[in-house]
């Protein structure tokens, strides 16, 4: 019999009191009523651990880095023990053929019952050009992903790479990096996107805890993100929002307004267009988040955030016009041309009219 989470935690020297605290905190983080703390505890005491295959494609491992720093001190231990992390080439002890054998073993043993956690994405361009990138155990990552995906219960797309494509998919995307949900021939497992570069550690752990506790996927929005963490914009819950409403903005770095902690809207903050939980859960155990540290949000959990112009520009650059312009520059140029044309046309009209009147008389 596979150990339950509770067994694992007790074995790791975690007290029952700490365990119950974790259950309560997780319930709160997921926006559940206090009654659910007990249900979470019960689930952890009775349910076997979920096997997880954690694959790495084209990525920078920032998701793993975030995950292992899951802020609540207990969460780190709990989550890493809670799931049966059968394969994660970054942090596993096994290497080489031994490591690869584990994937096959898990797929056979838990066919249709394990979770495929995918960090990064495959470069599909190699399928067209024959170029090679992201080779794992002598095979392209795409093959490993497809094989594991077809037998999985669900797929978690960790981070912006797996969810949207992120930097490797930024224009011109030479490797054809493709987010998981757009990879063809991947089977029918449901995909949960947990975007962010990286996602918040507590969000990652809470998604897994939810699946474990309720034995179903969290409710997702139309873009496949868990509603509980991605239903509001950074701006909606930002502690600097009162300065926005008051019209108090940082105008340039290190000005008086920056020292006073005014709104970073004019410094290009993407908080108003970014769906994430940074302004509520924050980072590093609720210590801070980018805006609290005085830096505008760069919108890292949004699709294509690398291709929207400078991180420090409020208005998006529009590349389609050949040179980089924003909506106002395009608009003012068009208005100037049309306005000029109107003025000239009016002048010519007046001239013509005077002429024709002269002819009539």
């Amino acid at each position, binding site marked *: 019999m596979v150990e339950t989470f509770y067994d694992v935690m007790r074995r790791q020297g975690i007290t029952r009191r700490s365990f119950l605290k974790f259950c309560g905190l997780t319930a709160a983080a997921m926006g559940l009523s206090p009654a659910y703390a007990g249900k979470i505890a019960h689930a952890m005491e009775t349910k076997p651990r979920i096997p997880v295959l954690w694959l790495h494609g084209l990525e920078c491992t920032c998701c793993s880095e975030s995950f292992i720093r899951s802020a609540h001190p207990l969460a780190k231990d709990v989550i890493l023990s809670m799931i049966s992390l059968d394969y994660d080439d970054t942090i596993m002890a096994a290497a080489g053929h031994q490591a690869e054998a584990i994937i096959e073993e898990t797929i056979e043993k838990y066919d249709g019952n394990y979770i495929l956690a995918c960090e990064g994405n495959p470069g599909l361009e190699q399928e067209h050009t024959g170029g090679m990138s992201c080779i794992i155990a002598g095979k392209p990552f795409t093959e490993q992903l497809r094989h594991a995906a077809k037998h999985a219960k669900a797929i978690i797309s960790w981070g912006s790479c797996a969810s949207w494509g992120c930097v490797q998919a930024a224009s011109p995307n030479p490797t054809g990096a493709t987010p998981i949900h757009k990879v063809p021939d991947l089977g029918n497992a449901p995909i949960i996107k947990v975007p962010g570069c990286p996602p918040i550690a507590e969000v990652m752990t809470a998604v897994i805890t939810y699946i474990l506790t309720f034995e179903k996927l969290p409710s997702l929005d139309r873009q496949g993100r868990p509603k509980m963490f991605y239903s509001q914009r950074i701006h909606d819950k930002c502690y600097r929002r009162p300065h926005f409403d*008051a019209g108090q903005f940082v105008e340039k770095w290190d000005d008086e307004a920056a020292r006073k902690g*005014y709104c970073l809207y004019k410094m290009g903050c993407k908080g108003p267009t970014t769906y994430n939980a940074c302004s509520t859960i924050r980072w590093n155990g609720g210590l801070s988040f980018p805006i609290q540290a005085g830096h505008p949000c760069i919108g890292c959990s949004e699709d294509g955030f690398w291709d929207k112009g400078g991180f420090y520009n409020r*208005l998006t650059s*529009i590349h389609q016009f050949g040179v980089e312009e924003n909506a106002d520059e395009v608009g003012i140029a068009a208005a100037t041309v049309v*306005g000029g044309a109107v003025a000239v046309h009016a002048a010519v009209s007046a001239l013509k009219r005077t002429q024709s009147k002269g002819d009539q008389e």
Partner: protein
Amino acid sequence: MSTSTKSHSEPAVYVYEAPVRIWHWINALAIIVLCITGYFIGSPPPTMPGEASDNFLMGYIRFAHFAAAYIFIIGFLGRIYWAFVGNSHARQIFFPPIFSGEFWDGVFHEAKWYLFIAKEPRKYTGHNPMAVIFMHIMLVWGTIFMIFTGLALYGEGAGYDSWQYTYFSGWIIPLFGQSQDVHTFHHLVMWVLILFIIMHVYVAIREDIMSRQSLVSTMISGWRTFKDKRDVDDGH
């Protein structure tokens, strides 16, 4: 105006019924408020001094934008209703007769008139064909675009349970890619409407002076008057 002495030489025609005229001016005012406040939402005015609790500038700007937006939306819905129940002129900007050769001939003649090739414009009771084209594309579709994207952006703030989110944000934001793209296009189409206003105001004044029918006064009184006795070209 020397021509005005001749302008009542033919019976005037009642073209724009009251709802159309009221909508025109309310809509014009709403668009001006929307453009100014919208511009300031994208590029806010200089920072306000004092405590945050003493100021609510962006709050007021956004309120004005949203209030004007609802007037704009409800006005447009009313205008669509009037297109069904009003006179034939109320339908004109919604249904350009693009399969009519006569219509396109009218467009080309109007283009020639504006390029100073044609010696005189044709005489219309309603809009001239060129005006119908511009109003249909820039104003009607521009308005529809702004209403849909605007409600999608509003739904983001109103939240998941709001009807704005359910019926607009939920599908429009993924359609464009992400929220920021919706903002950018909403911003660009503001400039389309501004270009429309520049051309519309110029052309209305120019036509009022140089064409064969009244323009500006018609949108105030509803009555079209003519400057010569020849037949009109749009057969009404």
